[in-house]
C-alpha cells in the first residue's frame, strides 16, 4: 500500500501544476483578472494546446508557465519547484534548465550566427565551449540545418528561422517545450512542416505546450485547454474538443 503510493507519486508527479492561480493587473482603479483561478496539471510526455482568443489570458498563462512571470496568488509548481517565491535570477535558472522556448517571432539574435544562437542557453547554463559547440551542432542537425551553422538568421527563410529557434529550444535538453504561436508568422505549407516536427518531437517523448488562437492548430495536439476571460472553460482530449468547439471557433 505504502510502496504503491510512493510509486504512484513518482509516476504521476505533474511537470506543471497550478493551484488556484490568479494573475491580477491593476488598470487605473480597476482590477483585471487575466488569470482567474486556474487549476491545471500537465504531465511528462503530453502534447497540450492552450487555445483562446486574443485577450483571453492565454499569453499571461504562457508567461507564468514559462517562468517569465509570477502569479499574483496561488501556486505554480514547475518540475516540483514553486516559482511564486523565486527571485529574478532563480527564475532565469529554472527557465534555462527546464524550458525550451519557441516564439512566434523566432527571436533569434541577428548579430549572432546560427550556431551561436543555438549555443546561448548552453552558455548561460555554464556548459564549456567544446561541449556547447558539439551539442548545438547536433541540435541544428535535428532540424536539418547543420550545414548552415555559420550563417546569420537574416540569410534564412521564416520556416528555417523557426527551425533554428526549435533547435535552440532543444539544445538545453529541457523538460518542457513551450511554443507560443509557433506557426503565427508562417505560411500554411511551412506551418504544416513545423507542426509535423513538433508532433515528431512529441512522439520521441518530449513534453510540449503550445499556445495558439487557432482551433485548427490546436487540434494537432493530444489535449486541449481552452481559456476564456481568464478561466479554463474546457480541458480534455482533442476529439472531445473537436466535437464541441470546431464549428463555433
Amino acid at each position, binding site marked *: 500500500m505504502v510502496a504503491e503510493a510512493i510509486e504512484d507519486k513518482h509516476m504521476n508527479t505533474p511537470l506543471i501544476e497550478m493551484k488556484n492561480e490568479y494573475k491580477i493587473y491593476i488598470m487605473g482603479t480597476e482590477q483585471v483578472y487575466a488569470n482567474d483561478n486556474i487549476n491545471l496539471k500537465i504531465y511528462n510526455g503530453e502534447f497540450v494546446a492552450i487555445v483562446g482568443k486574443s485577450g483571453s489570458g492565454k499569453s499571461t498563462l504562457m508567461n507564468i508557465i514559462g517562468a517569465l512571470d509570477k502569479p499574483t496568488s496561488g501556486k505554480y509548481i514547475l518540475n516540483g519547484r514553486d516559482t511564486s517565491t523565486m527571485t529574478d*535570477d532563480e527564475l532565469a535558472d529554472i527557465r534555462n534548465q527546464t524550458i525550451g*522556448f519557441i516564439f512566434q517571432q523566432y527571436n533569434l539574435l541577428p548579430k549572432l550566427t546560427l550556431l551561436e544562437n543555438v549555443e546561448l542557453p548552453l552558455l*548561460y547554463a555554464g556548459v564549456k565551449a567544446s561541449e556547447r559547440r558539439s551539442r548545438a551542432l547536433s541540435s541544428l542537425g535535428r532540424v536539418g540545418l547543420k550545414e548552415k551553422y555559420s550563417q546569420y538568421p537574416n540569410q534564412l527563410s521564416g520556416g528555417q528561422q523557426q527551425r533554428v529557434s526549435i533547435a535552440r529550444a532543444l539544445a538545453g535538453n529541457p523538460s518542457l517545450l513551450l511554443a507560443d504561436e509557433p506557426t503565427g508568422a508562417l505560411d500554411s505549407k511551412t506551418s504544416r512542416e513545423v507542426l509535423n516536427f513538433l508532433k515528431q518531437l512529441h512522439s520521441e517523448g518530449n513534453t510540449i505546450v503550445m499556445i495558439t488562437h487557432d482551433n485548427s492548430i490546436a487540434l494537432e495536439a493530444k489535449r486541449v485547454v481552452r481559456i476564456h476571460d481568464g478561466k479554463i472553460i474546457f480541458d480534455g482530449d482533442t476529439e472531445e474538443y473537436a466535437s464541441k468547439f470546431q464549428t463555433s471557433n
Partner: protein
Amino acid sequence: MLQSFKLAIKAILSNKIRSLLTMLGIIIGVAAVIILVSIVSGYMGQMVKQFEEMGVNKITIFCRNMTTRHMDDNDMYSFWDEHPNLISGLSPSVSLSNAKVKSGNENLESTTIIGVSEDYLDIQKYKIEEGRGLVYADVAGRSSVCIVGAYVANTFYGSSDKAIEDSIKINGKPFSIVGVIETQDEDNFDEGGTDDFIWIPYTVATKMSRNGYINNYVLTSSDTDYTNEITTKLKEKLYNIFKNERLYNVTANSSIIKQLNEEIGTLTAMLAGIAGISLLVAGIGVMNIMLVSVTERTREIGIRKALGARQGVIMQQFVIEAAVTSTIGGIMGIAIGALATKSIGAMMEIEANPTIWAVILSFGVSVAIGLIFGYLPAKSAAKLNPIDALRTD
C-alpha cells in the same frame, strides 16, 4: 567573461561612427591631461634644473653691518670651525661697484668686480681655462692678483693665454692676471654678461671698499640635507650679533627649489583637474550612448533573459562594453597625447616627455569612467522584465 568581451567588440564594431564619437570625448580628455601635465612639468623641470646648476647646496648671507654690531670674516670662519662637517666651502663676497677698471688705456665700464676667497671657484662650480685660481696665500697676503672671466680675457687681451701674462688696473692699482675662467654663457657673451667679471682676494677688496665691512657671504653645505641645519644655526648666530632680524638675511637655494617644486605640483594638479573635467564630460557621453544602446537592444536583452541569462550576466555584458569603449578611447588618447607632447615640446624647445604617472592616471581614469558610467545603463538593462522586453520591437 571572454564571451562578454567578444560581444563588446562586436557591438563597438557594428556601430563604428557612434563608437568613435563616444571615444572622441575620452581621447581628447586623456590627450589633454597628458599634454598639459607633460609640458608643464617639462618646462618647470627645466627651471628647477637651472636653479640646481647654480648650486643646490649654496647658502647666501646678507648682513647690514654697523660699527657697533657687525659680522666679520673671522666670525664667519669661526662658524665654519664650529661646524666642520656641515660646511664644505665659504667665501665672502665684496663687490666694488664704483671701482675704475683699466686695461691699458681702455676703460671697462660694466665689468663686475668682487672680492672673494679661494673657495669661490668651487662654490660657483666654475672651471679654470688658463692659469690658476685664487689660493689661501693670495687672500692672507693680500696679493694684488686677479682672476678674470672669459669675456674680459678675450675682449681686452685677445685670448686667455695672452691675458695671464698681463695685468689690469683697478682704481689705479695694477693686478696681475693669474687665471682665466671658462666661458659660462655663450649666448650672453657680452658687456655686462655672465663672463664679464674680475675676482680679487676679498682681503684686498675690503680695504678698497668704502666702509671696510663685508656684507655678503656665500657658503656651501657638504650635503643638501644639512642646509636647513646650517640656515638655522646661522640665523641664531646672526641674531646674537645683530639682535634684530631685519638686519640680516640667510637664503638657501635648496629651499627656493623646494618652494618652486611645490608650486609646480600645485600648478600641475590644477591643470590636470581642468583636463579631468573634460574626462568627466566624456564619461557622461559614454553613459548617454550606453543608455541608447540598452534601449535599442531591449529585445535582445529580453531574449537573453528568457533563455536563462541572469542579471549579473546582462550587467557584465554592458559594463564591459562601456569599459572597452572608454579603454580603447584612453589608449588612443595616450598615443595622441604622447605624440603631441613630443612635437609641442620640440616647438617650445623644452624637453617634454609624457610622464609615466600622467599616462597611468589617465589610462586608469578612462577605464574607471567606463565602469562607473556604464554601471547605471547596465543596471537598467539587467533589471528589464523579460516579458516587456520581448514585447518591444
